[in-house]
């Protein structure tokens, strides 16, 4: 009884937040402006992407097969980017602080449309956002995913890792565009400095055969970008109902306790919450973002199987457990919540009578050997 009523409260509480969601997009984040400590002053680089409506008529870009990546230094960077993206655990303890890999959320090595594909992302940066809460270059967006989704430490700007992931993203996108608009020859090589910027800029060397069809703005909104927005649920989302969905459709792979499953030393089935998953700053902790991802991509290999309501409910359930702390937390959960969590999420709230989420969160960027499952 108690459990139920508390959860109901949670749902009621979250209703007004739903309406606020759009406003936070525009709200400046004063607290990130000055201080010099990079760890405690991370800007909100996980801000929600503009949700792109999915249409039946959408045609998605088809990047060239990986076998077409050229030999030589440029091709080597592209290949390294692929490898880091799919097996990000190579960077464990260096830049990665959980059991995840980029490919766990950006399915098919960042190629699958509607799973936030790299080929679409590359043309959407640099993206300027209001005030201090801006996402700059492409590499800064990647840094955001290291800090939050990977619960790690972002590689330095211009580092070989960021150059490689940028090169891979660029190659996917450009090879797709060139095929679509019949531009012959290999994907033009770019310098490292150019690569990490992204392609949403007037000085980007875009072949004319492409730019005469798609201007910079059109390129930044390619169909398939991000996770398509799931329709609103009929009933306000509920972690209680979500638990039933979880047990029926997710538990078998992600485990009763959400910790996934280790096979041969790697999380073949990735953890959804707890110390080894994404942290409270990651986009996936927002119920709406997780819903969009889950509805389109889970259970694995099914594509859309859940109903809209089930997707919302299970996303709420997954995000109603504790996980690694928000890296922008400076000792006061309610302040962190007020500054960064004015959206659909449970940070700073108590669900089912449990301690306030955020008050007992797991460490940010722990060493692998120090994390107990």
């Amino acid at each position, binding site marked *: 009884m108690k459990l139920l009523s508390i959860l109901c409260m949670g749902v009621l509480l979250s209703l007004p937040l739903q309406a606020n969601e759009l406003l936070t997009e525009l709200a400046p984040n004063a607290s990130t402006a000055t201080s010099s400590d990079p760890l405690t002053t991370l800007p909100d680089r996980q801000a929600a992407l503009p949700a792109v409506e999915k249409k039946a008529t959408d045609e998605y870009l088809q990047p060239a*097969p*990986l*076998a077409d*990546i050229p030999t030589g230094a440029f091709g080597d960077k592209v*290949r390294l980017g*692929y*490898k*880091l*993206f*799919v*097996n990000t655990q190579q960077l464990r303890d260096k830049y990665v602080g959980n059991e995840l*890999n980029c*490919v766990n959320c950006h*399915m*098919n*090595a960042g*190629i*699958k449309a509607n799973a936030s594909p790299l080929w679409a992302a590359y043309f959407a940066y640099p993206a300027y956002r209001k005030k201090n809460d801006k996402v700059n270059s492409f590499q800064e967006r990647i840094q955001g995913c290291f800090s939050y989704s990977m619960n790690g430490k972002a590689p330095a700007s211009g580092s070989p890792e960021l150059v490689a992931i940028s090169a891979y993203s660029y190659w996917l996108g450009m090879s797709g565009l060139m095929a679509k608009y019949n531009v012959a020859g290999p994907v033009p090589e770019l310098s490292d400095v150019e690569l990490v910027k992204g392609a949403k800029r007037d000085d980007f060397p875009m072949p004319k055969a492409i730019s005469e069809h798609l201007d910079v703005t059109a390129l930044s909104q390619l169909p398939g970008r991000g996770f398509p927005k799931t329709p609103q649920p009929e009933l306000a989302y509920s972690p209680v109902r979500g638990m039933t969905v979880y047990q*029926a*459709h997710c538990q*078998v*792979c992600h485990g009763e306790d959400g910790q996934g*499953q*280790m*096979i*041969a030393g*790697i999380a*073949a*089935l990735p953890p959804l919450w707890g110390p080894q998953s994404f942290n409270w700053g990651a986009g996936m902790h927002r119920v709406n973002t997780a819903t969009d991802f889950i509805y389109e991509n889970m*259970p*694995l*290999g*099914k*594509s859309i199987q859940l109903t809209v309501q089930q997707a919302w409910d299970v996303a709420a359930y997954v995000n109603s457990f504790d996980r690694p702390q928000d890296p922008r937390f400076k000792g006061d959960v309610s302040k962190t919540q007020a500054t960064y969590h004015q959206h659909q999420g449970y940070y700073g709230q108590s669900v089912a009578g449990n301690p306030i989420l955020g008050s007992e969160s797991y460490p940010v960027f722990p060493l692998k050997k120090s994390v107990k499952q």
Partner: protein
Amino acid sequence: MKTSFYLFGILLSLPMCNVMHVNASETSSQQVIPAAAQLCTSCHGAQGQGMGVVGPRLAGLSAEYINNQLTLFQTGKRQNPTMLAMAATVQGDNIALVSEYFSQQAVADIPLQFRGDKVAISDPFEALAFQGDWSRVIPACTSCHGPSGVGGGQFPRLAGQEVSYLKTQLLSWQNGTRKGDVDNMMGNIAVKLTAAEIDGLSEFFANIK
């Protein structure tokens, strides 16, 4: 017809079984075969190492998985005349005991290949195994079956399994004689595979030794 073939297999394998039994007691690390598992060894080998077309390898599968499959045979969700009869011989606590025994038998160490190790993969079956084919919503086999298909938990080990067995399984999902995997998660994938892919993938995983 099929049954008599299997019976023939048992007869043939009985003497062999004794030989292996001796081997087993020599390597003292192996635990004693529970009585309820004696019968099984005639087709699956004393250490569950498999006996070619007679019976697939059970070593390397988890207790959870074996346990579950025995129940699926018993309830007919997984249809196989031989195993229907064999699974009926283990009931109650013996199911767990037998499952435990086979799950503890050793399999050879294999070099592990992880997703992402190779970028351009020219063998189409290896590519399916490590990258999938998302144009048909087929995820990489190794994203559930683990690196090199070593398996774990309810995901069976594919690496080094008998080739004809792997093939039969994929076909039986296609013809509806194997069911019972939670939420049809493997069935959903098996039905998308072409005949050539079933052959190629079975070969590919069987050859990981």
